[in-house]
């Protein structure tokens, strides 16, 4: 852990004291409590009644849990689903929904007398997850455990070219669809294969080599469930300024600018996690998913809703391999080729029509140099 210098810390606390004089009178306890909660603290105050309601609804449901036959997680989820549908008009945005869900779950756990390790996420459409893995015996089990905490109808694991214990890791877990491919096919091909295996409306894509807490995966499911077609991992704030970026990040940003979506920055389907809607997969065809930037450009060209709702730091935790380090490595070349392919298809479909009507060189010369 990196230690912060004491001077800086003093400055920061001092600044907070002066900007928020109201908190001082409330004492130290309330200060820590409010800082624990999310940035939506101000919005939360207005929703307090909703949260109370959710909590008591959770308690009511929790009391019934004991006499219920089905698994307690299942019951908690379905009751929250019902309650969420009732109060959905009052919940705005993901964070409010999650707050209410947490309150409900707290009430539920309080009444049922045991804690539940699930994410209170109410989805309107069936959702599935696709895990693409190669030799990931160390992390795959944990990845699946995290996915189990989400309200998914199906979890599809695509194993390709496995030579280690990954297969038995998957078989240990119940309720998983396994796609086994003896030879290496590539991550993107694996994702495309997995997408073809399910009929779910929302698809979440993760990699087997990185354990991401379910809390961080939920926003992607939520975004696609509520109408987005592509929910990308928002890495914008993690990237250094342009001068220090690697060529892959630069080319991703360039593609987005070509597609007239420079607001997306360097966010790309190449990065996991991301979620897609069934509508999107049918529009671009599952084959296109094998080349993620191509799928992205097709989605944008077809007018689908592409957003980057949440951030998961995959840059720092990504496993370093000999092939993905440094500039000019094999993976970088592959990704650059993908982007070229994406731009090529975009141009073929007449994508640059909007930009083609720019002025001629002579006209530019007259504008700049005429007197």
């Amino acid at each position, binding site marked *: 852990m990196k230690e912060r210098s004491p001077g800086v810390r003093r400055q920061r606390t001092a600044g907070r004291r002066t900007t928020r004089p109201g908190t001082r009178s409330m004492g130290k306890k309330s200060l820590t409590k409010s800082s624990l909660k999310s940035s939506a603290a101000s919005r939360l105050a207005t929703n307090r009644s909703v949260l109370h309601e959710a909590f008591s609804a959770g308690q009511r449901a929790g009391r019934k849990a004991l006499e219920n036959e089905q698994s307690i997680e299942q019951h908690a989820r379905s009751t929250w689903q019902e309650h969420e549908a009732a109060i959905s008009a009052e919940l705005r945005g993901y964070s409010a929904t999650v707050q209410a869900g947490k309150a409900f779950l707290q009430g539920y756990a309080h009444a049922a007398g045991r804690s539940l390790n699930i994410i209170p996420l109410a989805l309107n459409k069936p959702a599935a997850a696709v895990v693409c893995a190669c030799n990931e015996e160390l992390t795959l089990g944990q990845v699946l455990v995290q996915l189990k905490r989400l309200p998914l109808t199906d979890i599809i694991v695509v194993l390709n070219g496995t030579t280690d214990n990954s297969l038995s890791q998957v078989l240990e877990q119940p309720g998983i669809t396994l796609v086994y491919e003896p030879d290496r096919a*590539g991550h993107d091909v694996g994702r495309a294969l997995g997408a073809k295996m399910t009929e779910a409306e929302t698809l979440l894509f993760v990699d087997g080599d990185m354990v991401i807490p379910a809390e961080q995966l939920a926003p992607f499911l939520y975004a696609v469930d509520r109408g987005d077609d592509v929910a990308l991992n928002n890495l914008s704030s993690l990237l250094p300024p342009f001068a220090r970026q690697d060529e892959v990040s630069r080319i991703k940003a360039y593609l987005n600018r070509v597609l007239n979506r420079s607001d997306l920055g360097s966010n790309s389907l190449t990065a996991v996690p991301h979620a897609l809607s069934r509508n999107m997969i049918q529009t671009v065809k599952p*084959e296109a998913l094998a080349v993620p930037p191509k799928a992205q450009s097709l989605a944008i060209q077809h007018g689908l809703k592409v957003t980057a709702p949440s951030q998961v730091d995959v840059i720092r935790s990504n496993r370093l391999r000999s092939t993905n380090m440094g500039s000019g490595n094999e993976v970088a*070349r592959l990704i650059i*080729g993908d982007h070229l392919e994406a731009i*090529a298809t975009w141009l073929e479909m007449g994508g640059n029509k909007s*930009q083609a009507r720019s002025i001629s060189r002579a006209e*530019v*010369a007259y504008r700049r140099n005429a007197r």
Partner: protein
Amino acid sequence: MLQKRGNTAFYAAKSKMAQRKAQLKKRRSKSAYKKGTKAYKYVIPPVEQTEWPVFGAEHAMRETLAQDTTNSHKPLLSVIIPAMNEERTIGAVVRQALRICRDAEVLVIVNGSTDGTAAAAKRAGAQVLRYAEALGHDGGRRVGAAAARGRVLLFTDADIPIPAEHLAPYVRAILDGTDVALNDYNGPVARIPVHPVVEAKHALNSMLARPDLQGASMTAIPHALSRKALEVIGTDTLGVPPLAHAKAVTGGLKVRAVHHVPVGKMNAVRVKKRGGPDPLSQVVWNDHLKAIRWITDTLGPRGGHSDLQRVRSLTR
């Protein structure tokens, strides 16, 4: 004024005191400054270009020298300068261009001008090609390259007087075997958000598998070409610099960023003077897209990049 430090040009940031001192010194030594011969420190020495007749009676030599003055002689260097309404700066630019090398022709392509650009260029000692209509920077370069006879073609602009010492490295590089010598200038990379053209230049170099070139491009001046480069690229393609850049790299030419001249700093004044977005940047940005289209058309949709272990047939 530009200073040369190592392989990079800097602006001298002098304090007022230092400036005053320098002025005083200049005034004191003015006569000596005027009298002194020119120091050809960085420029090409004259030994390079003239091949003396092997078997030379004085008569024969005089004949070759006489031939030199006629059109049949091919100069070592052609400096190509497109100019449009640039009478204030063209004189200085031409004078600097003439200093690079004694065996040089300086072509000024005066296009769409309504002021005394042509006269000023001629006075400074350049050959002038006149066009009534505006050609644009790239059009002017294309026309100039078609007319040039030199072994080395150096392209620069009429609005920035770059000292000969900073133009010579490009010519030097070509004489040493490089085919395309580019300005080692990446554009304003530190600006946030980054300029679209800077982004496009970097992306194009990545797509050409030359990330080491970073933002260097044939869009920026000064740059120099060898005769071989001109043949591979084609004179007409020079009208679309990013496309010429792509052709040069894929054509197996030796493309190198040889010397840094901060041209962005030098014409910043002009950009500020005109309000609104620069119409040129949109044109340049579209040029890059044209270059990418050419890459995907000639080298296949992946531009020659590998597919690694991807088994695409599985997804069908």
